[in-house]
């Protein structure tokens, strides 16, 4: 190390600066930070994706589930349902620095592309709550179906899709007028909604129905219903929840809950290409920003599985807190 420092000192100033930057960032080139909410443990586990290991545990409120990063990466937002709020964790210090007025029992939420507005599903009063993140105030509510849960925002931020678990619909909400413009019936207990990055398709998982609906967001119609079949497993053990789609829209991943598998779905043909065995009761997933890895939360086995996205293989398991549920990965 002293040799390197000496070498930098002897370099012209501009070059030395470049060298310093290189020194700072080189080890972290593939290193991102994953934040995992542990529903039972009331904690957030911080994972260094370079070391593929947990490096820190942050205590949060009661029953943390939905978890997202602010667009600038400055804060982790975590819905603590039994405390009826969303907590903000400063990513630099790992400290809780504030709360957002989410309404009762928040579970999943979505940030608009500007990062200024947050949409929260409130299961207990059949509403979607709209929050101004900077002012930390409530802007309004939209009445939806029974037990709202999944939240997906169109890439341009104009349409918010909320799924309601007992009504069994995907509600399309115009984010400007905050009115429902369409309702699409899907299978039982829809839990998650995800748009393709080009806005051409919306995928909605149905946990009890055991299917994934592909919806045309323009026509508001289900264009394809994807079923899953795993040899040796009962149909009722296949309970799709989390969805992750690569940026190019070519590959989708669907977490199948107590089937302990993630289905790999061809983004174009919608055929199931493969089932990857992960930990027990897989809930949600997140890509590393370079899309090399997909991390899954495994609720019953208290761990996170790491999937190599190119090889479509599970390469590692990372122990986290009690009953992991949600996951968000920061570029830092």
């Amino acid at each position, binding site marked *: 190390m002293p040799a390197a420092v000496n070498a930098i000192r002897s370099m012209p100033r501009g070059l030395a600066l470049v060298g310093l930057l290189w020194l700072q960032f080189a080890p972290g080139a593939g290193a991102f930070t994953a934040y995992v909410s542990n529903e039972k443990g009331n904690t957030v586990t911080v994972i260094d994706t370079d070391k593929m290991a947990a490096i820190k545990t942050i205590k949060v409120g009661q029953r943390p589930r939905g978890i997202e990063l602010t667009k600038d990466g400055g804060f982790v937002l975590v819905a603590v349902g039994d405390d009826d709020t969303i907590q903000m964790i400063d990513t630099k210090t790992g400290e809780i620095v504030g709360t957002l007025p989410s309404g009762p029992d928040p579970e999943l939420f979505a940030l608009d592309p500007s990062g200024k507005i947050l949409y929260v599903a409130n299961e*207990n009063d059949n509403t979607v709550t709209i929050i101004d993140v900077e002012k930390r105030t409530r802007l309004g509510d939209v009445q939806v179906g029974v037990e709202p849960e999944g939240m997906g925002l169109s890439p341009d931020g104009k349409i918010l899709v909320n799924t309601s678990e007992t009504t069994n619909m995907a509600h399309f909400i115009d984010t400007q007028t905050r009115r429902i413009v369409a309702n699409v019936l899907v299978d039982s207990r829809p839990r998650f909604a995800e748009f393709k990055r080009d806005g051409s398709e919306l995928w909605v998982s149905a946990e009890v129905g055991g299917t994934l609906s592909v919806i045309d967001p323009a026509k508001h119609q289900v264009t394809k219903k994807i079923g899953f079949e795993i040899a040796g497993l009962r149909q009722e053990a296949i309970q799709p929840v989390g969805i992750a789609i690569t940026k190019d829209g070519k590959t989708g991943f669907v977490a199948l809950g107590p089937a302990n598998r993630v289905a790999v779905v061809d983004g174009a043909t919608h055929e199931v290409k493969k089932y990857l065995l992960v930990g027990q009761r897989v809930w949600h997933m997140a890509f590393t920003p370079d899309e090399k890895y997909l991390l899954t939360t495994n609720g019953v086995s208290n761990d996170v599985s790491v999937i190599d996205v190119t090889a479509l293989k599970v390469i590692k398991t990372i122990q986290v807190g009690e009953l992991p549920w949600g996951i968000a990965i920061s570029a830092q």
Partner: protein
Amino acid sequence: MFSLIRVLFAAGLVLAPMPIAAAADTVELQIGYLHRTEHKDTISLLDMPAGNAGLAGAQLGIEDNNTTGKFLSQRFDLQEVQLSDKDDAGAAALDFAGRGVSFVLADLPADALLKAADAGRDRGLLLFNVGSSDDRLREQDCRADMIHVAPTRSMLADGLAQYLVWKQWRRWLLVVGSHDNDRLYADALRRAAGRFGAKIVQERVFDDTGGARRTDSGIVQIQRQIPVFTQQAPAYDVLVAADESEVFAAYLPYRTWDARPVAGSAGLKPTSWDASHDQWGAVQLQNRFLKSFARRMTALDMHAWSAVRMIGESASRAQAGDAKAIGAFLKGPEFALAAFKGRKLTLRDWNLQLRQPILLADGRTVVSVSPQEGFLHPVTELDTLGYDRPETKCRLQ
């Protein structure tokens, strides 16, 4: 790409500028709720049925259906009819049919249920049994116009037996009450023991000699009676009680001669719902119920909620307002209900019984949920609970 997205969304807004509800006339669906004025004695004050027992569950189901229905132009209404002991259930069913009601939830004893089903059959009435656990209604006395939402005694007994066997509590001391329904429950428990490898080491009958459940003198005598009643039993692991009439079972825990756990009608009870059940999103339903009715949700409430949701679910899937189409969907292979039990609930097509996991609750928490791991079945593990297709005596007509 951006312009393409804009075009797509613009097209979407033109195609569907309004919620579906505004586009069509609202279809009204009438659901009946038929029950009998009944006085039930319970040992525990906490188990005294509320005035709106069952009915409240139906009302919450209607509310949930209507939240969904507003997006589909469907509206659900509930009509309650309460019978006295002298009133005829068949006449009540005909009366419902006359008022355009096609679906009737019934919390009635078996004979009254059969009367209602037989009277309503030619009028296209579809009955939902929410109160009776009699196996005969799903076996030799089954009806094509009666759907069973409540689990049978055999389903409850099998759910309990699987857990006791898993726990290695295989030696049972069976104590049976002296009423018909107690004996039927004991039959189901004996059958369950035989199916899953438990052994009933001895049976005792607890005679109902009459008397009040509550007295000013209190429990002094009970503390002496129960140890005496349970002494000199052969070696056993668990006392299993069949006391639907609530004469003695609740007195057993902590009072048996030997220090043994109690299950069945007291202690660890098999049930379709418990006020403490909070898994699989159930806490949302529990919260909605508590908020609306200022009391906890019982199994009867859950049966009624499920029945109303079965109708609502079929109405939304069939996209139909007429009872025939809804009934056909309900009995068809596509039907499934999400009811906070961790898997979909479907109908056994041979006798119209709702398949469902059985909760094992101790009154404070849910201890376990059956079917237990390892009890296998070629079609669905839920069919390890109760009479299965090959053994059924039901011929639907």
